[in-house]
């Protein structure tokens, strides 16, 4: 029996000012999966990722076609508010972007605007839970009032992850979250992702095949704006069905 997918995309296409960046992408994401989107640079994987939480709406001249379902409804239908979508589908960016506020206020930002806490104590609890879940609590618990921008690169990225999970999203999108970090920080975040999947569905864009092999259980390969192949990570890397996938994996294209 196939489980009902958490999110599914049907014939999604994206064009910027008339120039097609993505065409006819259909894919399902099951709950609690960690899915990697891989492919050479410029293949459209980040563009696709940004469709999943309607971040492409903020770009002028960007037109999205097709359907994307979250649970039961199409997030691109005109009755659905992108603000609501983004509260349920969180995002972590390539370059860590903590707000120029204290660590505490960074985490509280989401809960405050979404009315998730009734008192200061509840906010404290949310902050502690988020930072603990992101593996950052021990390192910053004594300096919650210091600016978030004062942390190291890896810590900042974990802060951004903590910030995202503080509002209880159901799906977390990650756009090459480790590409700006050193290997030690990368390892810490990969370890964190392993723990996060128990609670969230994670869709991660990565340019490193090794990372995809390490952390995800499913993988999708994009090339020149098309979804070429998608399946279990092991299958994709050992017995790819399409020869383009084969070429990418063996390093002939990329």
């Amino acid at each position: 029996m196939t489980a009902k997918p958490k999110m599914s995309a049907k014939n999604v296409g994206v064009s910027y000012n008339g120039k097609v960046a993505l065409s006819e992408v259909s894919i399902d994401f099951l709950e609690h999966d960690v899915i990697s989107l891989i492919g050479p640079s410029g293949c459209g994987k980040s563009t696709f990722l940004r469709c999943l939480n309607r971040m492409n709406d903020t770009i002028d001249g960007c037109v999205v076609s097709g359907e994307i379902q979250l649970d039961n409804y199409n997030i691109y239908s005109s009755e659905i508010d992108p603000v609501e979508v983004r509260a349920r589908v969180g995002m972590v960016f390539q370059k860590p972007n903590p707000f120029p506020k204290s660590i505490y206020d960074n985490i509280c930002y989401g809960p405050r605007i979404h009315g998730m806490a009734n008192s200061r104590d509840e906010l404290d609890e949310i902050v502690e839970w988020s930072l603990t879940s992101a593996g950052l609590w021990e390192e910053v618990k004594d300096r919650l009032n210091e600016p978030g921008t004062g942390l190291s690169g890896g810590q900042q990225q974990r802060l951004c992850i903590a910030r995202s999970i503080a509002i209880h999203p159901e799906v977390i999108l990650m756009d090459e979250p480790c590409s700006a970090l050193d290997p030690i920080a990368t390892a810490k975040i990969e370890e964190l992702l392993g723990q996060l999947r128990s609670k969230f569905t994670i869709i991660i864009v990565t340019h490193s095949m090794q990372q995809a092999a390490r952390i995800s259980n499913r993988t999708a390969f994009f090339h020149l704006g098309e979804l070429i192949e998608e399946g279990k990570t092991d299958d994709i890397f050992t017995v790819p069905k399409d020869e383009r996938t084969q070429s990418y994996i063996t390093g002939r294209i990329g």
Partner: protein
Amino acid sequence: MNTFSFICIFLIVLSGAYIFGHRYALSSVKNSTELHSLPSYHGFYVAIWFAFPALIVLVFWYFIEPIIIKSILLESIRTTALLGSTTPDLLLNDIKNLATNSFALKSASAVKLELVNRYLELKSLGIYLKIVILFSIGMLGIFIARKKLSPKMRARQSVERVFTLVLGVCSIIAILTTIGIVLSLLFESIRFFNKVSPAEFLFGLHWSPQTALRSDQIGASGAFGAVPIFAGTLLITLIAMIVAIPIGLLSAIYMAEYASPKFRNWIKPTLEILAGVPTVVYGFFAALTVAPVIRGFGESMGLSVASESALAAGLVMGVMIIPFISSLSDDIINAVPQSLRDGSYAMGATKSETIKKVVLPAALPGIAGSILLAVSRAIGETMIVVMAAGLAAKLTANPLEAVTTVTVQIVTLLVGDQEFDSPKTLAAFALGLVLFVVTLILNIVALIIVRKYREKYD
């Protein structure tokens, strides 16, 4: 010979020197490629040797001539009986004024007439001497230059060195201006503080700058306590800021975040027109349109409103300052990186929430800097307050009363005929010093804040 013809002849000889150098260089070789530098540089070389020594002498002459004339005339004055009633400087001024005022000459005394004639003689002698010396030195320069001319001479290097020096001098003029401002303000202020103590000036509460024309005149006591003036400046600036900051900031937010690029391209320059209107026009508007409206409004509500209320001047000044805040803040808000906004949108925040909670706090240092610059502009503004604010130095917080500001007092104290030495005129310089220092500090602090903010994001 008047200045214009002098300049013409100077320029003609200058061109002659250039042509001479040019021709000489070409004629001294068979083939022009044997010259090190282009003939034009040889020409410039000769021209420079003509002009520069002459100009240097001219500058010296300009400073020395008045001194020499003064000492010669003083000699003649000593022999006359006029010295008893007045000082030599005043007498000298008198003579100089009489020399240009043919009307008054008819009724001047014989002794004075003689002095005036002497003065005019000296002046015309000076002019003849000047011309002779200048041209002789110029000719000497040309002669020396000719001696130095040769095909191998590095004329271009020398000419370029001189030219670069001239450019360097141009850039020093900015420093000279600042030094000039500081020194002139300091000098006169020190002379003022010799007559009125700094403590009384900075902390005194009574401003009534009278000085005696004669030492025995009644009403000779002048009070120079500037606190009411500072208070007046602060009151009007405060009113202006209350108008300008909300309007400027909200306009900037709309332009930076909500407006379409086409709208912004039109609105931003249009708002900047407000800053381009001459302040005298604002003053007229404030005095003739705004003040009566405020007065009528206030009186219909039963309040007593002065005809030159601080409110009228402050409101109009606020309107003038709006573009300072809106344009600068618009640039600053645009400089906030898009990644911060993306982070906020990705968490499901609306646009206004993002602006209020993420963008504005991030832009705050820069906006604070722009506000400081606007305050500095408001404090230094003159014409609006001269025309719409009052002269009475009242210490009050009521915007409906008339107050006076630092700039108004500087203008009133100096416009008109006064001696240059009385405490009244010197007080203007002391006020000017305070104004300069305060605006300087505000500008520097604003600059530091904005620079620190830029460093964070670039």
